[in-house]
């Protein structure tokens, strides 16, 4: 009885809306039979985006995008609201999954040569979606609206300010005025919650339309190059002969992978939650060390490791060149071999990109170029002397900030060279010369040390000899 009623209701709705007639052929469109697990990353990215939409809407029920109240509402969400900690975790790990999946999807499409004829626009819209995803990641980090977020906005404005001609305007647009204030957060909220999601929805729609229009690319075979004159005919013949309906023959893998991803994201959100909030968003709290979230940590490392004076060119032209190169890739090569076995340079490019980003990411996580402001005075077991110039030199090494950048055994910073065995490497005269004059990354201390202090410092450094076996 109920079943019959349900059927008749569905029949009525379908008759009036045409759902089955419209979506049925889309769901059952033919796909190559051997398009298997390599093809799940695109749908996984979309699934991660939907998690972001759902969890973002949930968070918006309690989040107030006001410069004065956002921080306290986030404290409420994190520590008091039911499931609040989990919801923030879900949103954070959902964002991480989206960045990861869009990267994997892009690498797979590139390696399989799927960006070639006739799918050039699929690739181009995908590149734009990658850009939108990264903007969502960065603006989302700012909505956390703690001390790190506030200073990240200033750093972003500083970078925007380097753009020729419109740099000043871009910086003011980023800050929402002359400095961080009431107008800053609301603009990032509008961008993160309305503008970018709308763009993502629109371009995902276009991307999916293009997938339907050109079909899912068949897995590449060595020795079977793309020829624009014959490709469409051959592809249609392939589908006629061996094509399978997308639903459910291929879609089940997408569903299984997406559900597995949801389980992992939910588990991470439950176990770890979202990143802890930092200090309040007070720009007058000076003790801050702004860092981007993990997906932009590699870029933070790039800016630190570039030769002095070159970063302004890199900041402006680096992202522009990479973006242009990616967008124009199909026009550089839109025919010929698709198989990665016949495209060693494509494989090398992906491997090099992965190794480069991973290496920079590790470097960014360590941030060895950053001074260690928490460096403590050297303990007695390291200093050894309990009085005299060596003892005084150890004290000066800490108070004059040397330990912020130099390491003695395991104490201090890693920005400068370690000084654990400096006594075996430099003579006292060489030490005085370097301390007095400084270098590219070291300030000159000539005007900052009395002769007695210099003697004490050198006495301590001289005592740092290599241990003989």
């Amino acid at each position, binding site marked *: 009885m109920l079943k019959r009623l349900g059927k008749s209701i569905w029949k009525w709705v379908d008759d009036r809306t045409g759902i089955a007639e419209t979506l049925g052929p889309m769901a059952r469109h033919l796909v190559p039979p051997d398009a298997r697990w390599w093809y799940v990353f695109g749908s996984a990215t979309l699934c991660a985006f939907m998690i972001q939409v759902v969890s973002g809407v949930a968070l918006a029920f309690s989040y107030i995008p006001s410069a004065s*109240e956002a921080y306290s509402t986030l404290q409420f969400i994190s520590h008091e609201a039911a499931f609040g900690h989990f919801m923030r975790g879900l949103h954070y790990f959902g964002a991480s999954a989206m960045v990861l999946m869009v990267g994997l999807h892009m690498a797979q499409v590139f390696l399989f040569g799927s960006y070639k004829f006739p799918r050039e626009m699929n690739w181009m819209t995908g590149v734009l979606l990658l850009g939108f995803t990264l903007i969502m990641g960065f603006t989302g980090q700012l909505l956390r609206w703690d001390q790190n977020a506030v200073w990240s906005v200033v*750093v972003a404005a500083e970078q925007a300010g380097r753009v020729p001609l419109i740099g*000043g305007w871009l*910086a003011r647009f980023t800050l929402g*005025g002359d400095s961080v204030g009431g107008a800053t957060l609301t603009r990032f909220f509008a961008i993160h919650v309305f503008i970018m999601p709308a763009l993502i929805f629109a371009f995902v729609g276009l991307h999916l339309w293009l997938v339907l229009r050109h079909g899912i690319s068949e897995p590449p075979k060595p020795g079977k190059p793309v020829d624009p004159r014959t490709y469409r005919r051959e592809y249609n013949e392939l589908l006629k002969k061996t094509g399978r309906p997308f639903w459910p023959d291929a879609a089940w893998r997408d569903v299984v992978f997406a559900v597995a991803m949801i389980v992992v994201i939910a588990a991470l959100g439950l176990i770890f939650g979202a990143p802890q909030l930092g200090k309040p968003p007070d720009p*007058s709290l*000076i003790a801050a060390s702004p860092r981007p979230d993990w997906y932009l940590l590699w870029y933070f490392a790039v800016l630190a490791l570039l030769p002095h004076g070159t970063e302004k060119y890199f900041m402006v032209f680096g992202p522009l060149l990479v973006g242009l190169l990616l967008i124009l890739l199909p026009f550089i090569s839109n025919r010929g071999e698709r198989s990665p076995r016949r495209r060693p340079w494509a494989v090398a490019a992906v491997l090099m990109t992965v190794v480069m980003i991973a290496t920079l990411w590790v470097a960014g996580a360590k941030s060895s170029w950053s001074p260690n402001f928490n460096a403590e005075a050297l303990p007695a077991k390291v200093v050894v002397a309990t009085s005299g110039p060596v003892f005084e030199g150890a004290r000066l090494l800490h108070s004059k*900030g040397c330990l912020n950048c130099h390491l003695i055994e395991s104490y201090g910073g890693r920005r400068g060279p370690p000084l654990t065995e400096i006594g075996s490497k430099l003579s006292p005269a060489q030490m005085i010369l370097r301390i007095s004059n400084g270098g590219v990354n070291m300030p000159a201390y000539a005007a900052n040390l009395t002769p007695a202090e210099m003697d004490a410092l050198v006495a301590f450094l001289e005592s740092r000899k290599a241990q003989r076996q």
Partner: protein
Amino acid sequence: MKEPNTEPASTGCPDSPAELSRRNFLARLSLAAGGIGTLILSVPLIGFIFAPLFRKPPAVWRSVGKVDGFKIGETSSVVFEDASPLPWAGVTAKTAAWLRRESEEEFIAFAITCTHLGCPVRWLKEASLFMCPCHGGVYYQDGTVAAGPPPRPLARYEVRVRNGTVEIQTAPTSISRFKKKAGAHA
């Protein structure tokens, strides 16, 4: 299922020159009307979003403490309010500066933002150096670059002493490239 009705109603002569001309006119009319509608909405919309960026807040003198509260030769952090904070700005309306007393009457106020990428620099009192926590930029006590990647000295605010009180003139956050137009000067 019935096909959607997309055929024009029969007029006896559907593709006659007069009918085509009429359709052409109607298509242009629709496009023009759409354009006018978009223009009517987009001008105030764009104006609303971007106009505040072109509004220059006044430079205001803010008191940061009594002259006697600052020792000669010492540098300390001072906090003051922006020129025209929005009512909902909360703590974000605050700004800090490093204030150095050079002599009885002379003060220097440095912006706290590193000229490399804008991170807040810290003052190391015994070392008499400003140091940036992000990429290790270092400045001497007069704000000149001592080491690391900063391309320029620390930016400065205007400072004056009035009635025994030290005052700092508010200025935009010092950002590379548009600092010359307005804001704390290098």
